[in-house]
């Protein structure tokens, strides 16, 4: 076998070069774990970190879901409720490895509507607190709650989007001059939604522990949405164009999808807040969401004013954009997690950015004058102002 040809040697070298770094890395890790890191280790242990991820209220019980988000194992000890030591059951264990999760059950006869403060102490005496603004029964996934959340989702998602779509015949009546104005207005609406989603995502990410790198995970979600939709959009558009179809419908679906993911995030937030009693979803708030989201319907149909579209498509567009709000309400209401809320908000923002990009591209291709014509600019700003004004209704 000593008559190997030069390419084979090269192959063998390639194999070695592929594996050697991994072996060396493994050896280095081994060495670190067996005293190699002693040189740089500090005597003072790193600070423990425990996050209280979820608080649930059941009759006679407060249940916490906690996670060790610090760099080292922790041992939980006492639990206080409103600064009084209280009995607590930890499962599976009081000792939590890094990133391990546990539930804490506190037998506690809480009062409906009262605020509470729970604190967890570790063996080193550090404490981690969570304030609950309003104690209220955490909804269980019962059939009734299921329908309540579905109704909320429909109110804030499907209904307003469908209402907005009803504007289509009116929009068709507008002169050609106003088409670009309308698209600009849509851009304004979408940019506002995108900024809103990002702001919301930043806020939630800021209150999450660093160990999750929520922010960067959200960035992945953002780019994932942008890239996947761009790829799909390009592929579908090419196919539709090849068949001589109408690419305006593709754009409408892309917008609907982007808004749909955004509404999923919105549903998560509403469901989550409703579940923990942070918002009382009164008539005013529902009306606010409905008016606010009606503008989303407008955004979806604005590219279709020059196309023939079947009613079926309009219905599907409405469902695609509004339906995810129901899904969001379910997820948020029954298993709310800040982490996934950030992710979905980021995905929504990514999807919306893609749509903005698509519409901008289309306007560039079709318009004769400058993209920054006064009409376009005013349409864009009016779109943002419209969103801003209607958003005031939902900041309850």
């Amino acid at each position, binding site marked *: 076998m000593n008559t190997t040809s030069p390419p084979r040697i090269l192959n063998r070298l390639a194999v070695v070069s592929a594996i050697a770094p991994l072996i060396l890395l493994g050896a280095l890790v081994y060495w670190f774990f067996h005293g190699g890191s002693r040189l740089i280790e500090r005597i003072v242990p790193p600070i423990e970190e425990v996050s209280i991820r979820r608080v649930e209220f*059941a*009759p*006679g*019980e407060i249940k916490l879901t906690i996670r060790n988000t610090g760099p080292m194992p922790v*041992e939980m*000890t*006492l639990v*206080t409720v409103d*600064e*009084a*030591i*209280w*009995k*607590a*059951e930890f499962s599976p264990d*009081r000792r939590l490895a890094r990133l391990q999760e546990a539930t804490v*059950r506190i*037998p*506690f*006869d809480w009062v409906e509507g009262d605020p509470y403060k729970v604190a967890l*102490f*570790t*063996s*080193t*005496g*550090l*404490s981690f607190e969570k304030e609950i603004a309003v104690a209220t029964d955490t909804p269980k996934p019962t059939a009734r709650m299921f329908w309540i959340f579905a109704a909320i989702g429909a109110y804030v998602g499907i209904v307003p989007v469908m209402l907005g779509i009803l504007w289509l015949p009116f929009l068709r009546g507008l002169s050609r001059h106003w088409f670009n104005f309308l698209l600009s207005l849509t851009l304004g609406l979408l940019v506002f939604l995108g900024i809103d989603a990002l702001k919301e995502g930043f806020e939630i990410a800021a209150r999450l522990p660093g160990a999750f790198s929520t922010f960067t995970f959200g960035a992945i979600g953002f780019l994932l949405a942008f890239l996947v939709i761009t790829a799909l959009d390009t592929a579908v558009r090419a196919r539709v164009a090849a068949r001589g179809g109408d690419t305006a419908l593709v754009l409408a679906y892309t917008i609907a999808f982007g808004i749909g993911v955004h509404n999923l995030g919105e549903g998560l937030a509403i469901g989550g807040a409703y579940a923990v009693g942070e918002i009382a979803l009164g008539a005013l708030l529902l009306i606010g969401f409905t008016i606010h989201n009606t503008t989303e319907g407008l955004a979806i149909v604005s590219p279709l004013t020059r196309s023939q579209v079947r009613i079926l498509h309009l219905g599907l567009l409405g469902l695609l954009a509004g339906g995810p709000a129901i899904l969001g309400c379910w997820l948020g209401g029954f298993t709310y997690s800040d982490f996934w809320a950030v992710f979905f908000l980021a995905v929504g923002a990514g999807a919306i950015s893609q749509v903005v990009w698509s519409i901008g591209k289309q306007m560039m291709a079709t318009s004769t004058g400058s993209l920054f014509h006064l009409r376009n600019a005013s349409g864009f700003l009016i779109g943002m102002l419209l969103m801003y004004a209607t958003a005031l209704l939902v900041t309850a």
Partner: protein
Amino acid sequence: MNASRFSRRSFLSSSLLSLAGVAGLARIANGCMECLTEKLDGKFPIGKTRVAGDDIIPVSAENILPPKPYQAPQEGSMDPMKYLTSFDYGTVTRQADGSVQREYHIWAEDKELMAAPGIKFPAWVYNGFLPGPTLRATEGDRLLVHFENRATKPHTIHFHGIHAANMDGVFEIVPQGKNFTYDFTAEPFGLFPFHCHMMPLRKHISRGLYGTLIVDPPAPRPPATEMIMVMHGIDTNLDMENDFYAVNGYANYYAENPIPLNVGEKVRIYLTNMTEFDLVNNFHLHANMFHYYPSGTSLQPAELTDTINLCQGQRGILEFSYKFPGMYMFHAHTSEFAELGWMGFFNVKA
């Protein structure tokens, strides 16, 4: 077979299970009685139940009795039961003129202590204990307190009482590894706290550098079962706010381990308040009244009461005896402190 342990566990699980509904109430009551019987050796009905119709319903079964520590004080922890009746009379030397000289040894050290169930507290303490030792002398004795600083920070001992300025533990700072001897006459008779007087004071006191000096009157007080109780806070997360409260170092210790007494037994408690951060602390005795001697500087009680309020550094002597057998609570009447560990029981036997 450890029957009491089993009943305790069954109480815990039964109280959890019974959350489901009314049917579970009977189980709570049942389990709770078990737990109380365990706590009271089955002898002392302590009225923790009320009768509603035919059912006996526990009154706040969850929290009248503090949670059992899942980890008992072990190595590096204290024994507050022993501390309760430990008095350091010093090394006595009788002088030619008949006067008495007492020498004490106190050292300061950094020590990690178990201050509440499962919680380690990086304390600074005198003689390895939180609170520090209870020195005891008679009025007129010459006291020599040899202080050695084995801790990492400079410390002092500032005694309350009458003495010369250079024995006051304010200016004579004792660095790490150094010694100082406090030399003064025990006067007047009474109860005196001592504590480190290094700046920042709040830090040095809240970390645990305090203790008590009892100066007995020349004619001793009548015989009684004597106890020292130092009320204090425990700032486990070092954020300059108390997380827990205790007497004699360990949250809820005397609630978990009631102090045994007999009916008619005369009790004298030397009570001092060294609580940092909070303005006051207080002592409330259940189902009884005590004679109170503020600062212990008089042999005549100032009042007969069941609750006294003390600011930081304030102290006094309490005298009482129990008329009936049973389990009696004593605690801070500031409910917050009581529910964060400053609670205990006297287990009075017939």
